């Protein structure tokens, strides 16, 4: 144990003497978590707060349908409607061209006579319905069919994401359905009044019959609101923690290249003791990185108008989870540092593999979007276990016992990677092969 602490002290001194390295180790993850959280926040969530997306709106109808769609889009507060470019009213062709060039992401064209066509169609349908009730047999009126639909053209920039495109199209359908049902109701009233003069028409007011109550069940009595901060901080914290692979592998390879390893091999000390001293020092670094990133989420992100990270009071679960994640990252780093021959190999493989494991782990795209083999592979990513554990704690109010499966998997991963590093060292020693 004495030799372990001596090696730990040496490793610690080397680390704290490298000021630039320390800045990179602690400042970069903080900057990363702030920048990436802000980018995601402003990219997706903040658009709900103030109009951000410019929509080219070509009104060829100049009637109630286009006016209602315009009002609907404006009231959504996500979009800014552009009807003129350089004081010139937009045409269909101009809008199409601007979207094609990528200057605007969406263009909507309400065609000529759209209101008339819709009115006519709805009127025929309502009249057929009413006259069908009045005279169900041999009613020539029932034979009339209105084939034309109102075709609203929507142009999308090919660079627009599918999910966003679907969300916009759904909104448009929702507005048109509201308008259509409102129209049906009005025409019904009108027709009934015409047929039955004694009928007293009601003023139409659209009210949704089905309303949705959103809830986020958590293990706690108090509901944890899943803000973007609650999602982003654990994801990016895990990502940054796994990047400890780079300085750790660098420390192992440096020792080899500078010749210290030669002497270490001649000393009466098991090399596993040296490995473990590195793990000890970098475990502290990793844990401190995690604390700093959590503090950034709690104290710095709110300064940018983002919601503060809510720890939910589960400090024990968070601590154990952070240690298990750190150990998994360190085991992986030790394994890469042992196998890689050069800094370049370690840095390239280390960083790319962490990015791949991050993607597979569902840190960028949630794992429930995955299908087939990728979904199965994703379950073997240690970053996925860590992510699941942290999300359970941050969003579902999980306690230590709830995340024990993830903690166990991460610890097993650490033991396996350390074991593999040891076996590799034995089978392929750095000298004499």
């Amino acid at each position, binding site marked *: 144990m004495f030799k372990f602490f001596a090696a730990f002290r040496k490793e610690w001194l080397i680390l704290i*003497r*490298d000021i630039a390295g320390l800045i990179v180790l602690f400042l970069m993850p903080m900057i990363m978590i702030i920048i990436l959280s802000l980018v995601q926040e402003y990219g997706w969530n903040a658009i709900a707060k103030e109009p951000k997306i410019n929509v080219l709106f070509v009104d060829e109808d100049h009637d109630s349908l286009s006016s209602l769609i315009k009002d609907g889009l404006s009231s959504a507060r996500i979009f800014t409607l552009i009807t003129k470019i350089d004081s010139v009213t937009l045409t269909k062709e101009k809008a199409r061209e601007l979207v094609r060039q990528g200057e605007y992401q969406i263009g909507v064209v309400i065609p000529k006579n759209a209101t008339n066509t819709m009115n006519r169609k709805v009127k025929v349908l309502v009249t057929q319905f009413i006259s069908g009730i009045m005279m169900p047999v041999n009613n020539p009126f029932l034979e009339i069919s209105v084939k034309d639909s109102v075709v609203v053209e929507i142009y999308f920039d090919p660079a627009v994401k599918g999910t966003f495109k679907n969300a916009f199209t759904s909104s448009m359908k929702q507005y048109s359905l509201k308008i259509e049902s409102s129209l049906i109701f009005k025409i019904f009233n009108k027709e009934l009044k015409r047929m039955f003069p004694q009928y007293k028409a009601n003023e139409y007011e659209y009210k949704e019959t089905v309303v949705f109550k959103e809830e986020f069940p958590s293990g706690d009595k108090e509901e944890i609101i899943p803000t973007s901060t609650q999602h982003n901080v654990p994801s990016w914290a895990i990502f940054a923690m796994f990047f400890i692979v780079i300085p750790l592998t660098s420390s192992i390879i440096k020792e080899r290249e500078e*010749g*210290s390893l030669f002497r270490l091999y*001649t000393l009466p000390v098991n090399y596993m003791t040296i490995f473990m001293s590195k793990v000890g020092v970098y475990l502290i670094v990793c844990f401190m990185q995690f604390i700093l990133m959590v503090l950034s989420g709690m104290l710095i992100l709110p300064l940018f108008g983002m919601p503060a990270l809510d720890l939910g009071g589960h400090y024990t679960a968070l601590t154990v989870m952070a240690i298990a994640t750190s150990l998994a990252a360190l085991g992986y780093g030790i394994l890469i540092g042992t196998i890689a021959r050069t800094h370049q190999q370690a840095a390239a493989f280390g960083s790319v593999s962490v990015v791949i494991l991050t993607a597979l782990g569902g840190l960028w795209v949630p794992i429930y979007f995955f299908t087939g083999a990728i979904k199965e592979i994703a379950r073997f990513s240690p970053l996925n276990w860590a992510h699941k554990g942290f999300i359970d704690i941050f969003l579902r109010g999980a306690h230590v016992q709830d995340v024990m499966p993830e903690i166990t998997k991460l610890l097993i991963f650490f033991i396996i990677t350390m074991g593999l590093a040891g076996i590799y060292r034995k089978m392929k020693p750095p000298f*004499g*092969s």
Partner: protein
Amino acid sequence: MSGNPIIEIRELTKFYKGNDEPAINNISLEIFNGEIFGLLGPNGAGKTTTISILCGLFAPTSGKVNIDGLDIHSNLDQVKQIIGAVPQDVALYPTLTALENLTFYGNMYGLKGKDLRDKIMVKLSFFGLEKVAKKSISTFSGGMKRRVNLIAGLLHNPKILFLDEPTVGIDVQSRIVILDYLKEINKTGTTIIYTSHYMEEAENLCSRVAIIDRGIIISIGNPKELVSEHPEYKNLENIFIHLTGKELRD
């Protein structure tokens, strides 16, 4: 040479992966207690390979090594306690001070506390480094680094000291201090095995030398005796050139 050999090498051979030629080929050698034994040879002759095997860094392809009566293969931990190794490269951590480096290496031999610190300071003082004990190695000159590198292998007063070209690339003053110190500790009973390219240095320092080339020992004996056996060559360097040739080695 008489007495008990402290190092016995029997038919030692080492092949590196992918090489058809052995780095050392069936070497047998005995080194006796209290000797300063020089292993001389051109680049790639097999000196470092031999030293590395003797230090327990890796195993030979075949052959046996006994150190102080212990089979190195089965008693590596015990052997490591009684040997000191000074590698060719400066095996020190550049951002640590001389004191911190030496404390770490001393700790690895189980030395600690005031006893270790006193030992370090005495040795640093001998090598004229006590004033820079708390300065980082990265600020040291090549000669200073070599001196600290040597101290790191001496802190536990090893019975046997292996030195792989300890004076390469350093100033004359540093070389004199190092060689004087080696003579000093040899007088107190430390057996020294060292490799060098400097023939004159070996001639003055060593009680015996082995000239090794292409993995084979081609001559062995007391340097003065070797010179007297070949009077036409006048010194060890000429004998060395005669035996190994003038062909450039990489």
